[in-house]
């Protein structure tokens, strides 16, 4: 990174590794040295962030475990409004973190990896109630860890298991009542559960997205047979439903491997026969995928795209993929390689990527720093076309300029800036018309 003056490097780095510069940020980063600042950001656990944590205490529900939330919002009382309110709180908390957290790199990466492992809050009540834990426990702590750990944490998380239907992925012809009866357990009542088919069998929804979106990429070299075999490997990876609490001796809504629903036959994935049995087969698949060279390339490309340009330079992707392979998928090392590469500075310096609405709103608030970024901003995000946690397809929100820069998109952004400027967003004080101009300007739409 040595070919450019420190202030230029600082400006590029801050534009990518944070949700936008606050007044004085670039100078501060330049003064401390970009490398030192980056290394500090790569260890978020060492960065003091208690002011934010204190601010987030207004939302005690977000600190609850999934089983606590399931108890707090029982099926009969979990009205649409109650669940909606929870998602609004979670969205506001995400925005507050983006604006206020000192651990900026961790937050941009959490945004990236959540979107990579997207789940949709309105799939059903259980997904909504497991969302706080999904982001807090599975994703945020692992965005700078091993990719295989992150992958496993999402694979086992009830939010993902339910979003992509793996909780109802069973061996063909599985009949739980029959199995339970033969095991002389108590009879299970007729079941009014949502989306549970009466004839149970394979559900390849998760298996397909695991290969296509989470690891290898659509051109990563797998075939329909692999999707099928992976689906079979994950049969029985489920969650504890209310009627299983007693049998499983686990909390409702937690991960449960149902051995009797697992397909015991042998399986071949990507040409190799799985060695394990039972739950180990799924774990083996995750390890195999996490180490696959297609995964290294696919993830490096996607990361580089998010942090540089739509078509990231090949040498940058190569460098990152090499780090990925050499470090067994150490995301801290891969992220560091990316930001320190000369190719990164070159590509990111072109400033071609358009901010997503979340980035626009967060960077506007960081630039203007009103005292209270109130929950009205959550609504603003959905007006801008990016309601948080409400992206339905597993692909997550698109990152391309064409998505966000339609005529309606520009008008919505201008509108947002004018509203922010004039203080028309409830609970957010006016930032003034000059600041509104800056926020609406084309230059500000770029990362």
């Amino acid at each position, binding site marked *: 990174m040595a070919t450019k003056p420190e202030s230029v490097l600082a400006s590029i780095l801050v534009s990518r590794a944070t949700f936008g510069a606050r007044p004085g940020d670039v100078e501060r980063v330049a003064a401390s040295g970009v490398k030192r600042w980056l290394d500090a950001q790569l260890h978020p656990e060492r960065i003091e962030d208690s002011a934010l944590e204190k601010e987030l205490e207004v939302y005690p529900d977000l600190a609850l475990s999934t089983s606590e939330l399931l108890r707090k919002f029982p099926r009969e009382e979990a009205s649409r409004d109650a669940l909606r309110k929870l998602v609004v709180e979670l969205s506001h908390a995400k925005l507050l973190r983006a604006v206020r957290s000192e651990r900026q790199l961790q937050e941009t990466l959490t945004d990236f990896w959540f979107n990579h492992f997207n789940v949709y809050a309105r799939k059903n009540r259980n997904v909504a109630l497991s969302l706080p834990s999904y982001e807090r426990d599975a994703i945020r702590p692992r965005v700078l860890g091993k990719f295989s750990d992150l992958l496993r944490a999402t694979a086992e998380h009830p939010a993902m298991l339910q979003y992509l239907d793996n909780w109802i992925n069973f061996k063909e012809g599985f009949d739980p009542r029959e199995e339970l009866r033969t095991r002389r357990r108590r009879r299970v009542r*007729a079941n009014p559960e949502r*989306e549970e088919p009466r004839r149970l069998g394979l559900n390849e929804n998760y298996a397909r997205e695991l290969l296509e979106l989470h690891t290898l990429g659509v051109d990563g070299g797998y075939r329909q047979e692999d999707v099928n075999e992976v689906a079979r490997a994950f049969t029985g990876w489920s969650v504890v439903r209310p009627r299983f609490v007693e049998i499983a001796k686990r909390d409702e809504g937690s991960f449960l491997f149902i051995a009797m629903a697992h397909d015991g036959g042998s399986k071949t994935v990507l040409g190799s026969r799985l060695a394990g049995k039972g739950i180990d087969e799924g774990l083996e698949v995750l390890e195999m995928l996490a180490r696959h060279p297609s995964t290294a390339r696919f993830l490096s490309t996607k990361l580089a795209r998010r942090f540089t340009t739509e078509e990231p330079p090949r040498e940058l992707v190569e460098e990152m993929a090499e780090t990925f392979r050499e470090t067994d998928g150490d995301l801290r090392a891969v992220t560091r390689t990316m930001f320190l590469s000369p190719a990164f500075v070159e590509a990111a310096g072109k400033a071609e990527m358009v901010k997503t609405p979340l980035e626009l709103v967060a960077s506007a608030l960081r630039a203007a720093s009103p005292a209270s970024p109130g929950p009205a901003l959550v609504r603003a995000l959905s007006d801008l076309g990016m309601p948080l946690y409400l992206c339905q397809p597993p692909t997550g929100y698109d990152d391309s300029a064409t998505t966000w820069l339609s005529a309606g998109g520009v008008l919505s952004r201008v509108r947002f800036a004018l509203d922010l400027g004039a203080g028309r967003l409830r609970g957010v004080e006016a930032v003034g018309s000059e600041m509104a101009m800056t926020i609406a300007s084309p230059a500000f739409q770029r990362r």
Partner: protein
Amino acid sequence: MDRRRFLELSGGALLLLRGAGARAASASNAGVLVVVFQRGAADGLHMVVPYRDASYRGLRGALALDEPGKGEGATLDLGDGFAFHPALAALHPLYREDRLAAVVNVGSPDPTRSHFDAQDYVESGTPGRKSTRDGWLGRSISALGGDSSNPFTAVSLTASVPRSLAGTRAVIALEDFGKLDSMSAGDRSLAERIETLYRQNPSPELSRAGEEAYRALRIFREKDPLASGGGPRYPRGRLAPRFRQLAQLVRAALGIRVAFVESEGWDTHFAQGGAEGSMANSLRELAGSIAAFLEDVGSAAAVTLLTVTEFGRTARTNGALGTDHGHGSVMLAAGAGVRGGRVLGEWLSLDSSNLFEGRDLPATTDFRDVFQEVAAGTLGVAPSVELFPGYRPSSVGVMASRRATFG
């Protein structure tokens, strides 16, 4: 000699004529296609009821509706043993006037029961293929040719451009167009200064987006579409204001060819209700909105409206007095060019041997057949244009258009 017959006779010249026909059609035909997406998978069996079917009552149980003429809450006769849910009463006159048709057992060849996969497939128009980047309406707009710089060529009453319209830039998506309208004088002068910034921006991408945005804004101010008052009464709820706004936009002659409206709340796993209840309320709002919208637009434009949903629901009522994810469902087509007053599509009895995987209404008509026919009939998209890659749609008979299919 009619046009179709002529084309059949002319044999070798067919290809050449297809091209010429397409150009002529797009120049002469100024229809507006309105697509209403019922998100969540609407229960077709609760919309168009086969009340004479021997298995209907047994399967539906508490959800079963009364046959026509049985007093309050009874279904409304469509002929041939079919009837509308009573909450669709607002659409019944349109059907009787031959302005509305229903297509039963319509759906996707892909068996997925996943909302997002199925919506993706319907909107991209490529069932089973996720890598398609554009949407079927986006491709239809591109096939139109003509003035691609009008940002109002397609409008969507949604916060972002829907998947169906991906692939074209001649689209403007806003959940509430009223927001465009409500700028104070101070805002306007700021907005003008911002426009200058976009015009001066060196990036062609940004300056073009700004140009499109401000062109839209100017057209909007000049025509002031939302100022027009009056019009019919719309029902209450979240959907009706979108239709009211769309009618205002269409009446203002902004050059709209395609419009997209979303209707939510069709995922009725619990307490779906019979003649009354949650789905009845949704249907009442949908029907009332559509009827009011068509009346509101009147003769201002040749509007054709099509309802679409990602799949249907189980034929049998589930244990929670609702229905689960199924397969085939119903589409309604209404307005200009529709050969209404008919229930179309191949109906199979509800006998369990006919049900898809033993539980759902089958899909005997591919949704792309209806899409292609409606796109041809309203927009003049030539049958030779490949709207649905790898698929050859066949005629369903929804549109009266002469240039239906001859492929």
